[in-house]
């Protein structure tokens, strides 16, 4: 299908473009930017006047809930929600049921996803069998099946020797290891940040050192093994400082922050709002501010949605018993834009955090509008505000702490491989 997108504001962080221009698509690829190629007869013309045209968003953590958790959400519903959020490539964590530790499971997931013809799905392979933190998975086989990186999702890897060996093995093949820095025994039964709010609410807590101690372990083992590590969901000021120091030493480390932690703090828990029951927990205001600055200054490379749809009943429980997580795949763009507006950052820098940077972290050829690249695009109205209400959320999970808020950024079209997979 030949598509001509005209008069849009093209913003491509990778190629440093921010200009109004036309873009031409054919055979699933970006054919031309600027003037129409000879004999180009568009099947579809999209008028992108006053809209932004950017590379399709890359989301580093989207739980699709299949296999195993279909009562929470399905592949169809979550993939539909992802493209409605402008996301064209996504990584899904291995904590499915069963976990993604077998090539067969990975192939099936990739196959199911491919048939939906929506976004590109990159399953994160389990680092250890069953995510149990004891035996290594067949990372090379899993890689052949389609896993490009390996991780433990939220399941702690308590045995440091196993962590070291897993890193060494991954490094052998040049695979990245993705880890969430949260030390299990210091987490204990904690559900909230060890601060004033948890003290008032009487909630068991997770101290900052649960993150910093885990980070120190990971950083030192990274140095030991030479693996590339991606740190998932930073949440503390102290943690950012450790990452900064490690990078200054030249270690191969990247890290991300979830949209929730970019905007919210422990204060938002209010009267036990279970939509704020997240891992890592929402921390203090100074942590939140450090995350916002860390993303700007580059110590934090990218933002992700950390999408975790949950069925309604699982949130209608006392805070500590409620299911952890927030839906967010449709809020990745709006919340990133909001951060950018509040911090007064140019749009091209803002969009890099959800296009070029995550693509680089994931190691995929995406997140740019180069000639000849796959036509994965997102077209949105940066000026249009919309209200986050249950009926506006396409994901099966309506569990978001941003319910009721007005956010900027309305996706108008999403294209994957040159096909319009979402239209407002």
């Amino acid at each position, binding site marked *: 299908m030949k598509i001509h997108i005209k008069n849009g504001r093209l913003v491509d962080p990778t190629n440093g473009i921010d200009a109004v221009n036309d873009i031409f698509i054919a055979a699933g690829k970006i054919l031309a930017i600027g003037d129409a190629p000879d004999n180009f007869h568009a099947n579809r013309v999209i008028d992108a006047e006053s809209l932004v045209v950017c590379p399709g968003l890359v989301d580093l953590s989207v739980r699709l809930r299949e296999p195993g958790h279909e009562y929470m959400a399905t592949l169809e519903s979550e993939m539909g929600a992802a493209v409605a959020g402008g996301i064209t490539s996504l990584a899904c964590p291995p904590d499915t049921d069963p976990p993604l530790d077998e090539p067969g499971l990975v192939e099936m997931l990739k196959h199911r996803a491919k048939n939906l013809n929506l976004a590109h799905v990159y399953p994160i392979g389990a680092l250890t069998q069953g995510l149990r933190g004891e035996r290594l998975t067949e990372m090379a086989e899993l890689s052949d099946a389609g896993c490009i990186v390996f991780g433990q999702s939220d399941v702690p890897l308590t045995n440091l020797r196993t962590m070291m060996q897993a890193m060494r093995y991954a490094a052998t093949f040049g695979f990245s290891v993705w880890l969430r820095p949260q030390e299990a025994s210091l987490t204990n039964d904690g559900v909230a940040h060890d601060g004033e709010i948890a003290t008032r609410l009487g909630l068991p807590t997770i101290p900052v050192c649960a993150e910093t101690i885990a980070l120190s372990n990971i950083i030192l083992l990274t140095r030991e093994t030479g693996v590339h590590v991606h740190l998932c969901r930073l949440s503390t000021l102290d943690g950012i400082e450790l990452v900064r120091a490690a990078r200054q030493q030249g270690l191969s480390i990247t890290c991300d922050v979830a949209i929730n932690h970019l905007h919210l703090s422990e204060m938002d828990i209010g009267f036990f709002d279970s939509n704020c029951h997240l891992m890592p927990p929402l921390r203090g205001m100074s942590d939140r501010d450090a995350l916002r600055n860390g993303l700007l200054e580059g110590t934090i490379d990218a933002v992700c949605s950390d999408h975790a749809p949950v069925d309604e009943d699982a949130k209608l429980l006392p*805070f500590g018993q409620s299911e952890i997580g927030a839906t967010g795949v449709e809020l990745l763009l709006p919340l990133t834009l909001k951060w950018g507006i509040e911090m007064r950052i140019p749009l091209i820098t803002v969009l890099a955090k959800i296009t070029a940077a995550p693509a680089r972290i994931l190691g995929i050829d995406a997140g740019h509008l180069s000639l000849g690249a796959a036509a994965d695009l997102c077209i949105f109205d940066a000026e249009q505000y919309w209200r986050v209400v249950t009926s506006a959320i396409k994901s099966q999970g309506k569990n978001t702490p941003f319910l009721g808020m007005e956010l900027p950024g309305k996706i108008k079209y999403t294209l994957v491989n040159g096909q319009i997979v979402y239209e407002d």
Partner: protein
Amino acid sequence: MISTNPQLNRSGELQHLLTTEGLPATILLEILDTAESFVGVTERDVKKIPLLRGKSVFNLFFEPSTRTRTTFEIAAKRLSADVHNLNIAASSQIKGETLLDTVNNLSAMYADMFVVRHLQSGAAHLIASHVQPDIHVINAGDGSHAHPTQALLDMFTIRRYKQDFQNLRVAIIGDILHSRVARSEIHALTTLGVPEVRVIAPKTLLPAKVERLGVHVYHDMAKGLKDVDVLMMLRLQNERMQSANLPSSEEYFKYYGLTQEKLSLAQHDAIVMHPGPLNRGVEIDSAVADGKQSVILPQVTFGIAVRMAVMSILAGN
């Protein structure tokens, strides 16, 4: 996101009693003043008044407790209400019925008031935010968060013996970290204008940034008790030894238990309080618990009057 005070209705009247935090002094004092009238009822022939006749009070105790449940039951019956006890610890929770399903089923049976005790902080707030407008919820203790009726009966007791809140030094001694009673007491004391509220505990039994609640922190009991007018002891639970908060109850008693000797460091007419049940020889010496400065038994009597006051005020709003 934070909205208006879930305990108050649009006119600023008490709709639910969930926590002493965020309640203005006028409401706390209204409860204490109303309770004065109920103390006398127990001295009459007919110990009942007809105020809540025809109303149904459901005791929803997800965390078992005979003492507290019984005092609420007595209070409700003295108000002529019909009382139904549900110990849900076992039955429906195992069958998988959710907390809110249970509440909805009971509401359909014309419940007017729920008295709720639960292991999880925030349970009472959850229930209160999901009941019909004319149903009232009283928090009888949720996790480590709040136990407002205990704090109110403690305030009533203090007022009976010390009259004026504005001139007191009050010390709360024990496991503040895990105590819903301590949190509720701290909020009530500061709201009522007590100028100095102290907490005395080892570092392992204090929550983060506790001083932000408006308390002075002491680890040394001798220093902490100096010139104190009211001592509020907290119960120490055995689990604390298991979870590496304390080495032993013996060492705890030596440094944080209340003995006659330590009591003498406080004001000579200081009163000793305890929410019960007592762990004699752990947080308090028998001689002190049974001694002339102890007001532990009056606390129990006042507890019924205060709970009657809370139910009456809520039922009328």
